[in-house]
């Protein structure tokens, strides 16, 4: 059974880059006009025509929700849909086995797999939990040799897997690894050397090891088909000369995101080779060594001005603000700007942002303070997505941004659809104002970093603020709550959050009622992640009617017991109920540290590590 997509999730969880890999892009298989490989009863002519027509028509169906629905109409629709599905999305790699997937979908060109749950990013799950790409690549290598695109999120990928990928799929074109780990430069080296048709290699927020293999050098000589090369997460130097030669022989290169080991001088050299770039990650944006007095510094301004197609800028990993004016020429064209690694002040931001009239996506550090946010609000009227990250990610640090900047954004950026905001203080009034000013909000994630912190003006819980969001933002599908919250907030969510698909809860609520409200009230709920909240077994039971409709439920440091989880496991055979303890805990406790449960066609997985107990 194919999983539901969450659009908001896709868009919001990756950095502001254009992932072309969406199901909206029509990927048509070669249509032969005949239904192939059928060994069934030869139907009379009209039905055959109908089958052909169906196949042709279904090729144009791209949305996987529509496809899932179509496949339920009848057996022949099921079959034809399976034959024509070219993009396969599996939201939880354990929900279905590779064998089952490849048996049903035989002509898949693109595979999109997601593994670990999101809270694993915050060290809430011991490493080596699972989500191995290996069984998938082996199965697909045998069954779908036409596979050309693989997109993985939070999966473990080994060097061997990368080698298999390169060797088994001639004509492999795109590899995107988001939040993955388990591989190193030697795997990359084999991969790039064998994939002669490679167009996209995107390593995003992934952890890879330095086996001291020069993978950039391993790209084949001669003209390359590369359109996108993203490696800003690589935490060690690369061979710059080889990179320069690679860029010079990649005329189709549109997206290039460098890591912090590329200096601004080196960036210059690349930019003059590739003025056709649309997406650029600028690396460190500082010089590697001091330019001695009298040394000529390259003309960065001209280099940027020459990149007339540049719409997406990121990087600035070790920024020396003196170099910022270099980007003035392209500000007016920018639709996406990622300053989330650039510790700059409001004064340094203002001259840039005042020219960014077309900006739609903006990621930034709170070093710009409320004043910086006010400047954003004044200019960026087209803003759709804002993320404000903390420079100092601790609970008791000073917060340079507050409800003041938040309010300014809500008043200036009326088209806002997605916000992620880290702060130390907030008020209900500001949140209520945003719910009214920005009715198009689809994603609302507010993180008040001090746990249980109330409205800092009134001292009240933040219930009313979040209540207003679910009430007024009728398109809301993703919500993350924080601050001091009573059960009342969850009552609101259950009552009004009818479209909510993803909900993140931490240090909130008073009793089981909170979780009950949500489980009983939100019919679209797919992904629920909860930590450190006082919800127990009774609350867990109130969701039995809904768990088969969800992708997963995560609850850590709550009040669950083994008995309670056991009850759920017995009541719902198609649910995999994993109890995860920390890696150094020997025995099973009465209390459950972490519950991770998900629907699955396959039953308990056979690759679970010792610290996971499947009930």
């Amino acid at each position: 059974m194919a999983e539901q997509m969450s659009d908001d999730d896709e868009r919001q969880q990756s950095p502001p880059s254009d992932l072309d890999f969406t199901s909206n892009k029509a990927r048509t298989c070669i249509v032969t006009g005949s239904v192939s490989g059928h060994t069934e009863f030869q139907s009379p002519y009209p039905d055959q025509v109908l089958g052909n027509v169906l196949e042709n028509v279904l090729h144009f169906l791209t949305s996987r929700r529509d496809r899932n629905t179509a496949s339920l109409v009848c057996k022949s629709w099921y079959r034809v849909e399976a034959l024509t599905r070219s993009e396969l999305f599996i939201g939880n790699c354990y929900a279905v086995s590779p064998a089952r997937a490849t048996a049903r979908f035989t002509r898949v060109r693109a595979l999109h797999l997601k593994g670990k749950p999101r809270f694993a990013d915050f060290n809430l799950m011991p490493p080596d939990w699972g989500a191995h790409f290996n069984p998938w690549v082996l199965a697909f290598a045998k069954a779908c040799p036409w596979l050309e695109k693989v997109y993985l999120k939070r999966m473990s990928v080994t060097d061997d897997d990368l080698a298999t990928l390169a060797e088994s799929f001639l004509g492999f074109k795109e590899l995107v690894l988001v939040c993955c780990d388990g591989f190193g430069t030697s795997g990359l080296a084999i991969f790039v050397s064998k994939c002669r048709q490679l167009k996209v290699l995107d390593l995003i927020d992934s952890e890879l090891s330095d086996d001291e293999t020069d993978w950039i050098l391993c790209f084949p000589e001669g003209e390359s088909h590369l359109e996108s090369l993203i490696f800003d997460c690589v935490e060690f130097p690369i061979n710059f000369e080889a990179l320069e030669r690679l860029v010079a022989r990649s005329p189709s290169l549109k997206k290039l995101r460098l890591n912090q080991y590329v200096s601004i001088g080196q960036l210059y050299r690349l930019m003059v080779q590739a003025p056709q770039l649309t997406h650029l990650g600028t690396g460190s944006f500082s010089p590697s060594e001091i330019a001695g007095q009298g040394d000529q510094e390259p003309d960065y301004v001209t280099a940027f001005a020459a990149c007339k197609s540049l719409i997406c800028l990121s990087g600035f990993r070790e920024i020396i603000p003196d170099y910022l004016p270099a980007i003035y020429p392209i500000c007016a064209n920018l639709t996406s700007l990622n300053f989330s690694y650039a510790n700059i002040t409001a004064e340094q931001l203002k001259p840039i942002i005042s020219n960014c009239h077309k900006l739609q996506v903006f990621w930034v550090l709170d070093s710009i303070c409320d004043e910086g946010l006010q400047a954003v609000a004044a200019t960026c009227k087209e803003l759709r997505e804002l993320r404000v990250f903390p420079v100092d990610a601790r609970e008791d640090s000073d917060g340079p941004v507050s409800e003041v900047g938040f309010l300014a954004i809500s008043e200036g950026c009326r088209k806002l659809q997605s916000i992620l905001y880290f702060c130390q203080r907030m008020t209900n009034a500001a949140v209520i104002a945003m719910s009214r000013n920005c009715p198009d909000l689809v994603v609302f994630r507010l993180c008040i970093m001090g746990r249980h912190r109330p409205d800092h003006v009134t001292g009240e819980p933040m219930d009313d603020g979040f209540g207003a969001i679910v009430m007024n933002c009728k398109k809301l599908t993703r919500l993350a709550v924080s601050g001091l919250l009573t059960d009342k907030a969850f009552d609101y969510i259950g009552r009004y959050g009818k479209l909510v698909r993803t909900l993140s809860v931490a240090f909130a609520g008073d009793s089981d009622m909170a979780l009950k409200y949500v489980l009983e009230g939100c019919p679209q709920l797919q992904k629920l992640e909860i930590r450190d909240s006082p919800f127990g077994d009774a609350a867990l039971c109130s969701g039995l009617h809904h768990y088969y409709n969800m992708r997963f439920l995560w609850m850590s440091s709550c009040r669950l017991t083994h008995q309670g989880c056991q009850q759920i496991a017995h009541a719902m055979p198609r649910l995999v109920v994993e109890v995860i303890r920390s890696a150094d805990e020997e025995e099973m406790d009465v209390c459950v540290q972490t519950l991770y449960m998900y629907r699955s066609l396959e039953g308990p997985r056979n690759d679970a590590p010792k610290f996971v107990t499947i009930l």
Partner: protein
Amino acid sequence: MERRVNYENDLNLMATELSLGLPGCGDDEPQRKTNPSIRNNKRTAPEISEVSSSESSSSITMSGSDDQDSPPPAKEQVVGWPPIRSYRKNCLQSSKRNEVEGMGMYVKVSVDGAPYLRKIDLKVYRSYPQLLKALENMFKLTIGAYSKREGYNGSDYAPTYEDKDGDWMLVGDVPWEMFISSCKRLRIMKGSEARGLGCV
């Protein structure tokens, strides 16, 4: 290029200190590998797992970190909170370390025997080796290796600096951050004169 060291949680200034001591001696890195709330879970009854959750009732006792009545757990760093990926936390910590007030930190550099002074921007460097290499390039001389005991003994030149108090100090003794914030000017002394300093 130095390899960055990733730590799960806190800022780790010790990692950037210039010192030739054996690794592991004299360091007091806070090791926070285990989740405090996991330890708190080891109870026989399903109780509140999170220490400060008694505050989650409607009475507002935690209005901020200045609140004297709040028990210490309010300030205790909890694993995975705030929800920022370690990679991002680490990148930001290192960029914060490099942040020095103001735009550029130009200091005069004099070399014994040279007819005129130069100026360099200390902010451009992240470590002693980088700075020393730049000085060597700029003045075409060799400074050699630093040792805690011997200073720059054995090399032709020794780099010194004038600190905030007006004293002349040997470059390399204090952590980089401290050096950056206290260095007023640099003087590269001829080896023969510098030997006196090394014997302290």
